[in-house]
């Protein structure tokens, strides 16, 4: 089974869960006066769930015929790509999300930019560190001072 049909299967599962919530659990807390309305909060989701189930089934069952097109990247050659780097960068993004508040903007961002280049194979520390620090300070200045959006610069225990 091709990848697009596997994804259609997952989407079908999603639509079924969505539909179950809309059809069976959502109206439980509906106030009696709202029940007389022609439209309930669940009306539109119910409609969507039916359409979603139909559309994903069409893909899953291969009813709509079309030529197989290969986009700019082919998943069948995934092992030839730099998958490790991509996963590590995603992990780095998650780590950044978790560290941004507790460790402060300047430390987290500097570390993110340096480690990002490092993961991609850069080893010139004398370029990486100054570039990352200058960019971090510049963006912090821009966001905090020019746009006026508060970003905690230092870790909480320093009092930033």
């Amino acid at each position, binding site marked *: 089974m091709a990848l697009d049909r596997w994804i259609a299967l997952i989407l079908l599962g999603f639509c079924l869960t969505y539909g179950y919530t809309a059809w069976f659990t959502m109206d439980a807390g509906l106030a009696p006066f709202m029940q007389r309305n022609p439209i309930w909060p669940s009306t539109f989701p119910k409609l969507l769930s039916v359409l979603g189930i139909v559309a994903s089934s069409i893909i899953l069952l291969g009813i709509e015929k079309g030529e197989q097109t290969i986009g700019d990247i082919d998943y069948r050659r995934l092992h030839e790509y730099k998958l490790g780097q991509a996963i590590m960068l995603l992990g780095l993004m998650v780590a950044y999300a978790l560290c941004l508040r507790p460790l402060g903007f300047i430390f987290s961002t500097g570390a*993110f930019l340096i480690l990002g280049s490092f993961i991609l194979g850069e080893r010139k520390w004398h370029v990486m560190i100054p570039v990352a620090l200058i960019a971090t300070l510049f963006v912090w200045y821009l966001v905090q001072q020019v746009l006026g959006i508060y970003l905690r610069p230092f870790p909480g225990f320093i009092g930033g």
Partner: protein
Amino acid sequence: MLEGILLGLQTAFSVQMLLMVIGGCLIGTFIGMLPGLGPMSIIAIMIPVAISMGDPAAAIILLAGVYYGAIFGGSTSSILLNAPGVAGTVATSFDGYPMAKQGKAGKALTIAAIASFCGGTIGAILLMVFAPALSSVALLFHSAEYFALMVVGLSAIAAFAGTGQVAKAMIMTILGLMLATVGEGALFNLPRFTMGLMDLQSGLGFVTLAMAMFALPEALFLVLNPITSQSGSSSEIKDMRITRAEARAIAPVIGRQSIQGFFIGVLPGAGATIASFLGYAVERNIATKEEQELFGKGSVKGLAAPETANNAACTGSFVPLLTLGIPGSGTTAILLGALIALNVTPGPRLMIDEPQIFWAVIISMYIGNFVLLILNLPLIPYIAKILAVPRNYLIPFILFFTLMGAYIGQNNATELLLLVGFGICATALRFADYPLAPLLIGFILGGMLEDNFSRSMQLYDGVAFIWERPMTLGLLIIAAVLVLLPSFRARRARLRAQGVADGD
């Protein structure tokens, strides 16, 4: 109308707005040139900056400037590297890259710039004529018609997705609509699909979703497959002048393609990509025998046609956005999201309620095109140096700006985790060749679609509005035909092909 134009001129020619246009065009050209980063990603990255400015006119002028700049930058990388940053400039590389290989890179860039300028400017004139007319018709629409019109728009996007792609585009649109129902709806004040999470109470962030759908997968693709993103050495750019004979050859092409491109751009779902390919095909078909031979080998006509058409189509795509509030493409959907975030609802009332925004946008299109011609063209040899930035530095920065954009929009670290999660899903969907723009368009239109649907249901006490209002019924029938027609035609073509094979 004259009053409106004057008001627009007054707004657009203030120092702040001029700076916005110039800055937007420069930033757009700069980033648009990077292979793999399309206008949607760039605009998504710029949105937090635009929103935090607080002035809707300035914000949309900045974003529109970024949009034109990105398209222009995209054609530059198509010509110099044969690496189109945007689908809309793929046709540009057919003749632009051979010209660059023949040592005529400067000339190709000039033709591209002039063609874009003319396409954009003629498009803006047509927009000025058609938008007010369409607005006045749209004022007669009620919620029921709006609902039906949005259904038509969404179906058209699915229908234009291509052979064998209609169901995929449809499920993506529906998924977008489903994501839009998360959180508290305006009509019910009841949290839906939040799974008890406080962070989902206000719904999913539109910037987060835009970043996750476009910027993040593109950055990940640059990491995964370095070959496509390799920045080659840009060929020497010299001699940017064109001859009188060349100017005479491209003039009629530009004239025809500006008009054709504009009207294709107006159609929802069509947009710059289809306009540029169609423009290229049409010009090739009507050219003389000798000229046809040159197409694909560095023909000036073959370069001017897609360049004119894609810029005219970009302008054309503003028509449904500004008059009906319905975006026809992913890019205009992002612009719509930004406007809603700034408390401006595009639609037929925009021209009456906020004429300064409406007209300033149109006037800024002229200024933007002018800026691209006189400012960016001479700077191209220098801007092209960005193509030499090593990807080891470029990619972490793209990822960082994606994260920053999502964070600034909501000021919430959970949003960053959502961004990564949605980004991974979007990458998987891209792998399986599912189009992502319909998802975002569905998400942005979802709230409005449901509001209009609910209002019509309440007014007519049920679904009676469908048959009691002939225009609604007509529009819904058009939507159904749009969705069913491609599969019907594909089926007929298949049956016919089978018949031929059987010796019928």
